[in-house]
C-alpha cells in the first residue's frame, strides 16, 4: 500500500494522461494507430455539402477576424462556425 508523499508522487508519475482518457476514445485511438496512413485518410476525409460555405469557389480575407465575422454573419449556426 502506498502512503504519504512517496505514494502521491508515484501516483502522478504512473501516467497522468493514460488514466484520463476515456476507454472508448482510447480504443478508437489505438485502432486508428494500427491503420496505415492511406486508410486513415480514406476514413477521415468526406465530402458533404455545406450551405453558403460551398457556394463559392474562392474566398479570401485580410484578417482572421474578418473571416470569423463573415462566418457568423453568413453561415447557418448549425454548421458550428460561430464563436462561443
Amino acid at each position, binding site marked *: 500500500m502506498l502512503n504519504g508523499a512517496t505514494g502521491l508522487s508515484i501516483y502522478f508519475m504512473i*501516467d497522468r*494522461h*493514460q488514466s*484520463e*482518457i*476515456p476507454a472508448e*476514445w*482510447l480504443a*478508437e*485511438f489505438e*485502432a*486508428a*494507430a494500427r491503420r496505415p*496512413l*492511406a486508410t*486513415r*485518410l*480514406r*476514413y*477521415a*476525409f*468526406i*465530402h*458533404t455539402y*455545406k450551405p453558403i460555405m*460551398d457556394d*463559392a*469557389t*474562392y*474566398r*479570401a*480575407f*485580410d*484578417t*482572421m477576424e*474578418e*473571416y*470569423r465575422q463573415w*462566418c457568423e454573419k453568413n453561415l447557418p*449556426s448549425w*454548421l*458550428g*462556425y*460561430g*464563436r*462561443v
Partner: protein
Amino acid sequence: MAAFDYRQAQEVGEALARHAVRYLFIGKSGAILLGFPDTTQDADLFVDRSKENCRALVDALRDLGFALTGDQSQDIERGKDFVQLKNGPFDLDLVFAPDGIERFEDAWQRRVDVEGFPVCHPDDIIASKEAANRQKDRETLPRLRAFRDYWLRTRQSTR
C-alpha cells in the same frame, strides 16, 4: 468534388516540396495525419507568409490544378490571413495567421514529420482551436486533447 485522399496528400507534398514551400498541415486535417480518428472535409495548410514562399505557393497550387486568377494569385502572394480554395481538385484552406499561434517559425520548430508530411504539433493544433473558440472547435477539443495525451504517451514509449 472528390474528398481529399492519400494520393492527393502526396501530390500536395510533392508539389510544395518541388517549389520549396514552407507549410504545415494544421487543423483537423493535421490532427488526422497525426492519427486522430475523426472526419473533416478539407485540408488546412498553415503557410509561411514570406513573399518568396507565397510566390512559390502560387506556382505549386497551379501545378496541382487550382485555377487561380491573377487577382487570386495576388491575394495569396500578399499573404492574406485566410484563403479558401474550392477551385481545384480538392478543397484547400490556406491559413497565414492561425488564431493562437504567434509565428510560423515557432510552429515550424515544433513540427512533426508524418511520413514526409510536415504537420503542426498537436499542442499548436489545440492552441489554434482554443483561440478560435467556435462551436465546432468546442465540440472537438475534449477528444482532441485526449488524443494529444495519447499521442505524447505513445511517442515517449517508442523513443
